[in-house]
């Protein structure tokens, strides 16, 4: 594939000129592969027919030139130069059967493939960018209508809710059980409060039934509640030493009187 008869000197003379032209804008290259691709164009042949050996020499001449001009080349250009020098030696020397690794031809073929592929990708990119483009050559809808998110709220209720609601209205009084109950229940605290006010007047033994509040004796439930509360309050007052309690016999009326201090 490589032309072994190619004279190094003839290449370097003609290509050095090209290299000098290129060297001015070394910064414009996107890396060594790009530079190689550009150099390959000077061979004026199809990339498939390119002489990698000649290309390697062009590249090395370019790097040589850059050194002479004291241009600082990025490290990867120098790495490529070293690799191409190695490739060149492999291509020029007869293959050493004891040496391991790929042959010079294989390496050269891969480099040719890389160049061809890069070139192909560049052409593809150009074709892509030459296509009609959205917002430049063809257009999307100018007036868009967003999909409105409508939140629909549905209401629900169960039969139980309904019945309870109705019960709540119809039995508004019944329906506050604690309030209702309190109307028929006297707590010990209430009885105590009441008796503390009254006990000061109870010098004589008095049936505790007479301490029951008015209107609490008609309804049996109320009577029971208030009796119990009043009795409990009496015990509490006795414990405090405020009153004395006595009961003549079982089921006889319970009587209380104010305890006279220090009697």
């Amino acid at each position, binding site marked *: 594939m490589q032309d072994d008869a190619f004279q190094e000197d003839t290449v370097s003379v003609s290509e050095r000129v090209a290299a000098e032209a290129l060297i001015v804008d070394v910064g414009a290259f996107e890396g060594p592969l790009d530079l190689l691709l550009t150099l390959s164009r000077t061979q004026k042949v199809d990339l498939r027919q390119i002489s990698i050996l000649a290309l390697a020499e062009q590249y090395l001449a370019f790097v040589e030139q850059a050194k002479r001009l004291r241009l600082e080349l990025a490290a990867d250009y120098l790495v490529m130069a070293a690799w191409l020098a190695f490739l060149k030696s492999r291509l020029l020397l007869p293959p050493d059967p004891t040496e391991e690794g790929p042959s010079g031809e294989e390496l050269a073929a891969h480099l040719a493939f890389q160049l061809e592929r890069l070139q192909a990708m560049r052409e593809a990119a150009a074709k892509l960018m030459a296509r009609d483009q959205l917002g430049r050559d063809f257009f999307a809808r*100018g007036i868009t209508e967003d*999909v*409105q998110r409508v*939140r629909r*709220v*549905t*209401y629900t209720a169960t039969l*139980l809710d309904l019945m309870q609601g*109705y019960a709540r209205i119809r039995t508004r009084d019944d329906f506050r059980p604690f309030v209702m109950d309190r109307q028929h229940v006297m707590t010990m605290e209430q009885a105590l409060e009441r008796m503390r006010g009254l006990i000061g007047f109870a010098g004589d033994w008095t049936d505790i039934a007479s301490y029951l509040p008015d209107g609490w004796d008609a309804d049996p439930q109320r009577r029971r509640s208030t009796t119990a509360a009043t009795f409990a309050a009496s015990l509490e007052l006795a414990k405090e030493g405020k009153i004395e309690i006595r009961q003549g016999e079982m089921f006889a009326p319970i009587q209380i009187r104010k305890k006279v201090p220090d009697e």
Partner: protein
Amino acid sequence: MSNDAKPKNDSLFEAPPMGEQERMVEAILFATADPVTVTELTGRMPHGCDPAEALAHLRKRYEGRGVNIVKIGDAWAIRTAGDLGFLMQKETVETRKLSRAAIETLAIVAYHQPVTRAEIEEIRGVSVSRGTVDQLIELEWIRFGRRRMTPGRPVTFVVTQGFLDHFGLENARDLPGLKELRSAGLLDSRPQPGAGALGEAEDDEDDNQTELFED
């Protein structure tokens, strides 16, 4: 890529054929962010075009289609056909518990139908807001019944078939009476939220919340 087969319309002297002009108007109306006036169309189309005529053709072409050519002020635009507006909406349904006022009002209508607003208010002991009644009507759970033949001829409310369906009742007379409510334990204890008979209702609410979370 530009279709080279299409006639180039850059001649200063010959206007493109009307079919082409129609295409142009179509493309411009489609892509422009605002409605376009005939003057603007004239300015943007090749020399010698008659956008007004092209518009008339285009308008006819879009008659009965999913989008129509409509005039907005003195400008033109392509808009979704009125009857397809529903496609531009994405509905999400959220289920909420009916408010206490609404439940009570509904219950009164159910137990006392036909009932006037004044009667509902008397039973509830508070005035009934317009919104509550509207909501129940919208839910199609109550509807207007006959007018009461009393002074002022007030309108009455009755429950609907939808109501019966929702609550699984054959008719409103199947609703349990107070005694039954009491024996079912519904009247005994409603101490505070979170106890007794409320339990079931709460489970329900819980359910709804779960659904909300899952969405």
